[in-house]
């Protein structure tokens, strides 16, 4: 018994040392993992809770996630009730005071960004609505900049010893990002006012940035899978008012958009949506590069 007590005591004294070597980041979505790596570099170790092929709303509070969040120094996610089904469960289970809401280690990016599509008070006959606004915030490069600016401050607060390192990396990232933004803004003029159909409102910030005009969603209500009736209805609409492209994410099933595309001749396009969404998108830069490339290729044909 005495040995057990000694062992346990040693465990508590020694373990935190090992944990604090690098800033451990628990990223709810791949885009925030990529950003944390851009700014944190070698001084952070990043765990990504979801992949590009998973719908970040429908995640189970899995054992592996509990183990990871238990050890993390910073949780970064989108917020605006995107992770409402699983993140609160993980936080309550983990007993980790570094990452409780209100602390430096809890960063929901939607809280510092201007949100689109705020529904305010609503009821669920409108589907699984997000009253705080649309949580799929990352597909606007300006939002990435704002999050980067806040993230570096969080890193500095958590690990002040590496302040210079984080600030340098942030400055470098900001420079490259601004240059890329300028390049993208030059490219995207031709996309302005193009009409698009989307599976779910996952691209609202992209539409807003590029000036795309969304005329319909395949889901009859947010969170409800496309129904035959609704697709038939969209077909009649699209025959009268054709759109340039039908967009979906890698985690949306392709059935609805492929059917509608075959009936209308409007191309259906799977955008990468986030880092890892296809083999070309290994970081945030290539995510935006490739997304724009795909959109231009598709709309130039029209």
């Amino acid at each position: 018994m005495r040995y057990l007590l000694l062992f346990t005591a040693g465990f508590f004294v020694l373990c935190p040392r090992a944990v604090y070597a690098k800033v451990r980041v628990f990223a709810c979505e791949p885009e925030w993992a990529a950003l944390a790596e851009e700014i944190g570099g070698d001084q952070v170790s990043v765990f990504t809770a979801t992949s590009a092929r998973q719908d970040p709303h429908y995640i189970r509070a899995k054992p592996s996630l509990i183990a990871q969040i238990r050890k993390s120094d910073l949780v970064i996610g989108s917020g605006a009730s995107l992770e409402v089904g699983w993140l609160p469960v993980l936080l309550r289970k983990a007993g980790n005071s570094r990452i409780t809401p209100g602390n430096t280690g809890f960063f929901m990016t939607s809280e510092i960004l201007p949100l689109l599509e705020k529904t305010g008070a609503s009821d669920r006959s409108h589907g699984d609505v997000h009253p705080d606004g649309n949580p799929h915030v990352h597909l606007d490069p300006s939002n990435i900049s704002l999050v980067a600016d806040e993230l570096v401050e969080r890193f500095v607060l958590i690990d002040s010893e590496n302040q210079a390192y984080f600030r340098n990396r942030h400055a470098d990232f900001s420079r490259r990002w601004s240059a890329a933004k300028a390049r993208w803004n030059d490219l995207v003029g031709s996309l302005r006012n193009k009409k698009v159909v989307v599976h779910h409102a996952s691209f609202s910030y992209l539409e807003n940035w590029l000036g795309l005009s969304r005329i319909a969603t395949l889901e009859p209500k947010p969170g409800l899978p496309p129904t035959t009736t609704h697709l038939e209805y969209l077909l009649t609409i699209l025959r009268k008012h054709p759109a340039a492209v039908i967009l979906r994410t890698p985690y949306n099933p392709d059935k609805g958009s492929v059917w509608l595309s075959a009936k209308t001749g409007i191309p259906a396009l799977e955008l990468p949506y986030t880092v890892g969404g296809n083999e070309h998108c290994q970081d945030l830069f290539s995510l935006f590069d490739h997304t724009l490339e795909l959109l231009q290729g598709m709309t130039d044909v029209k």
Partner: protein
Amino acid sequence: MNSVCKSIVVSTIIIFAGLAATGEEYNSSDAVLRHEIKQLKDLILGIQEESVRDTERLQQEIETLRNGYESQISELNQKITRIEAGKSSTGESVGIAKTSRKIRDNSFNPSIGVILNGTFSDYSEKDSEMFGFGIGEEGERGREGLAIDESEINFSANIDDKFYGSVTAAIVREEGSDIVELEEAYIQTLPDFGLPGGFTLKAGRAFWTLGYLNEHHTHGDDFADRPLPYRAYLNKSFNDDGIEVSYVLPTGFYTEIGGGAFRGEDFPVGDPTGSSPQSYSAFFRVGGDLGDNHSWRLGGYWLGANANERGSNEDTVTFSGESDLYGADFKYIWAPTGNANESEVILQTEYFQRDEDGVYDDTNVGTGPVAFDDSTSGWYAQSVYKFHPQWRVGIRYSELQSADTPVGLVGSALDAAGYDPHSLSVMIDWTNSEFSRLRLQYSHDELSRGGEDDQLILQYIVSLGAHGAHKF
């Protein structure tokens, strides 16, 4: 409209003027006629000028209105820009205090969730008896016909920086009246309480950590009723008053250990005496992922009880003595690319063994106190396959292994006569959204020798309010 009226008036006057001119040709002098025509012409010109002036005035008014609107719109635009600029400037500044940090529906009021739940059940057997185990009231078969099941109301919120609180009341039909059953009422420490990392303390009444299903409310189950071991050993679920501590180890691999102490009033314990807890528990759990597609969890559990007059079979059977329940559970989920929203397969199994050393008494038969020192066991295995985002099918088999009947209990409710009750269920359910589900279940129960019960259950489960948790 005005100008149209005027045109009509003008034309009418011209026509009348013409008629007058022709009609009076013979009896009036030229001078008079010319004078009258001139007067008429002046009148017409006057009216025309007036209508032109009217039109101009109208145009001016429209212009003024338009200018007004345009200036108002541009003013609004400026305001919007200012507001957005203000917002993004708050966003860019570093101020942790400035953000709202809301992840729940309402920040100060508790989250409120309501579960409504109704069934239609049809059973081929009039009675459902199971011998050899001593079944509590909630472990019995549900009501036949149209019925509402437990209607639950839950409030939960962070109380302050140190505590989380949750209360769940179920309104249930028992013996012909609707009664309120307090299923859960507990507080739980938040990380800022100051316990070492990974520790959580929970106190009050709760569905304690024991096996897989016990922690969960029945409305989240994949089948319309609980499997046999839960009905026999836990009276559906163990939610005594008590306290539980759990510790998640700081390992890469999920490992959790914990234990609790309980008042000893809920099945399988009995009437508590004195102040010391009559029941204790201990558990461990491990789990993880295998690649993107597979996740699993395995657990081991013990619930020891010093049972005093534990009532069962409508209080005709009592047990006093030591009752130890050992359990193990395993859950495995396969989802292609880990995207459970589209399709998944869930395998779930639990095993329980109950060791009892005490005295049974069946007052119905008048056995008197009979010593009992033996063990029984029970298990179930189930699989659920989601083949469409809204549709799932499932199959479940559950079984109990009875003990040898002591001589004194032969012919009583505790005499299984070597028979092992078992049950097979299949179900299909349709989940419209995360908040509503309809289910059809068929079960074939053989709970006693010769008692074959075919059960058809149609069920709806809906939740209002707070967004439910996506449990593993």
